[in-house]
């Protein structure tokens, strides 16, 4: 049996009173493209920081390619590449110089550096920008260069922390292509964090839904969605209390499926949703609840997330723009 690429056993990290990562045990096989999906503050970055030896665990243990992160951090570092959330490039140097510096730090010989720089630049299609100062790069180009740099030393595992945060949709699609390609062509195991549903859905082979420091669900996106069973029926009512009443009614009437409400909307996951709608409308009418809208769709990862955490990940995205604005301001001297 192969050594897993990453394996954790009750891995825990506390910051004072806050438990950022709470007894996470997971196993990621070699060559996987694995996603950690969760809102900001769920503990994704802390988990990656522990796996990449940036911070020590408070409890439990973790192995990367069979090497214990606490006992042998230096050997772990040789075997991993990390792309952090914010940029970590030297913007007063050219793309090639940044890559060369990285190669030197990882002890690559001169010939190997030269060869490798050209390979990774080609992979992220930055060959024509290699001799240009990084400060003239766009956000997407910087992210690509950073991914390229993380690959310079042929890591076995590549960690990507929010690889498309703050990028426009088109650039995001491009980055996804690069990530898929390097997972395939460079045969590197990838663990990425994201709070974008589409990213987890389209990019990752398996995802772990993480919230409040622990894993709520772990499977392929397809299985997670199928596990919800059938369709999602959404009913819009006038207010939250009506939604709550309708939920109770639905449960009391012994109906199958999984029911939630959020704000004034009721969401029911159920087999054969089309035939449930009349029943629901009848229940609502009897209780004197006005239904403003009806919606029926196949479950998305949003529904999966909601059913496992009772919260909507999209609520968290509003704060996203604030964070980016803050980061950009921080960059100005």
């Amino acid at each position: 049996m192969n050594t897993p690429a990453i394996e954790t056993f009750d891995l825990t990290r506390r910051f004072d009173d806050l438990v950022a990562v709470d007894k996470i045990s997971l196993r990621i096989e070699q060559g996987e493209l694995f996603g950690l999906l969760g809102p900001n503050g769920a503990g994704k970055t802390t988990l990656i920081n522990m796996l990449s030896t940036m911070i020590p665990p408070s409890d439990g243990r973790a192995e990367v390619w069979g090497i214990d992160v606490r006992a042998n951090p230096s050997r772990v570092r040789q075997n991993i590449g990390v792309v952090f959330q914010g940029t970590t490039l030297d913007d007063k140097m050219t793309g090639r110089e940044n890559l060369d510096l990285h190669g030197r730090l990882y002890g690559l010989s001169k010939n190997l550096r030269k060869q490798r720089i050209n390979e990774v630049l080609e992979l992220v299609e930055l060959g024509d920008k290699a001799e240009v100062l990084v400060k003239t790069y766009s956000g997407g180009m910087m992210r690509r260069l950073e991914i390229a740099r993380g690959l310079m030393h042929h890591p076995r595992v590549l960690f990507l922390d929010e690889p498309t945060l703050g990028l426009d949709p088109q650039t995001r699609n491009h980055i996804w292509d690069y990530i898929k390609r390097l997972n395939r062509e460079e045969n590197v195991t990838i663990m990425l964090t994201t709070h974008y549903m589409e990213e987890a859905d389209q990019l990752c082979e398996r995802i772990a839904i993480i919230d409040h420091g622990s894993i709520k669900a772990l499977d392929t996106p397809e299985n997670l969605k199928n596990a919800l069973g059938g369709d999602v029926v959404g009913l819009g009512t006038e207010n939250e209390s009506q939604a709550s009443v309708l939920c109770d009614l639905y449960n009391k009437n012994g109906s199958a499926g999984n029911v939630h409400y959020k704000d004034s909307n009721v969401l029911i996951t159920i087999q054969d949703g089309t035939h449930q709608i009349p029943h629901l409308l009848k229940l609502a009418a009897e209780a004197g609840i006005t239904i403003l809208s009806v919606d029926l769709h196949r479950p998305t990862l949003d529904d999966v997330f909601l059913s496992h955490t009772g919260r909507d990940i999209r609520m968290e995205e509003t704060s996203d723009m604030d964070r980016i604005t803050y980061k950009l301001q921080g960059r100005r001297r």
Partner: protein
Amino acid sequence: MTSQISGFKQNTLTSMNTVYTLWLREMIRFRRSKSRIIGSLATPMFFLVILGTAFNSSFQMKGGTGQTDISFLAPGIIGMSILFSSLTGGVSIIWEREFGFLKEILIAPVSRFFVALGKALGGVTTAMIQGTLIMLIAFALGVEYQSYLGMVASMGVMLLIGLGFIGLGIALASHIESHEGFQMIMTFITMPVLLLSGAFFRIGDLPSWMKILVYLDPLTYGIMALRFTLIGETEIPINICLAVLVFFAATTIGLGGYMFGKAKV
């Protein structure tokens, strides 16, 4: 036994490689920042020309050895420039933290001590280039040095001063998280260290309370050593100067490497 030796050799090679890499980075960045080079030369030149002229015409230095005042002042100005650029070089770690690059270094499988050492050597090289340029410009402006050998020897003194203050800068920067802190350092360390060092005056006639402070200032010994090598005058014996400078450099570099090793991202 053999494997131990080859392991040691391997480690030494890796460490030297780390030091060289970080040094190289400083050199690449220095070459790019032409405005920084010019700026770093302009300030000392203003001091030398304006202060030198003013000293010359407004009052006569007591106990002089026949040197003109601008010649007396030149070693002080060179020392000042080394102080500024080496401290700045050390605390530049604060910028690196703020702009993220520090993470790239800290995640690499290399010893942080040697990272700090490489950065220090890079910063010192920059400081020495600036100090040497000032020495030569001052020479062109009419400053009289005692010998060419002395001029070369003064570069060794610049190295020691630079290492001492860059180590101090790295040690401080490893625990300062913001650039507000950086401003504090610049004000509360640079100015007293510079003004107490005897860069602008002779220390023999000072009141005794101030003399104590002057003797506690490591830069004093640097300025005296520079003056000794360049114009053959010093108020503290040269071997004491050198001993203090070596001790200061070794202590702060050791401290800087240690503190940087414990620095948080």
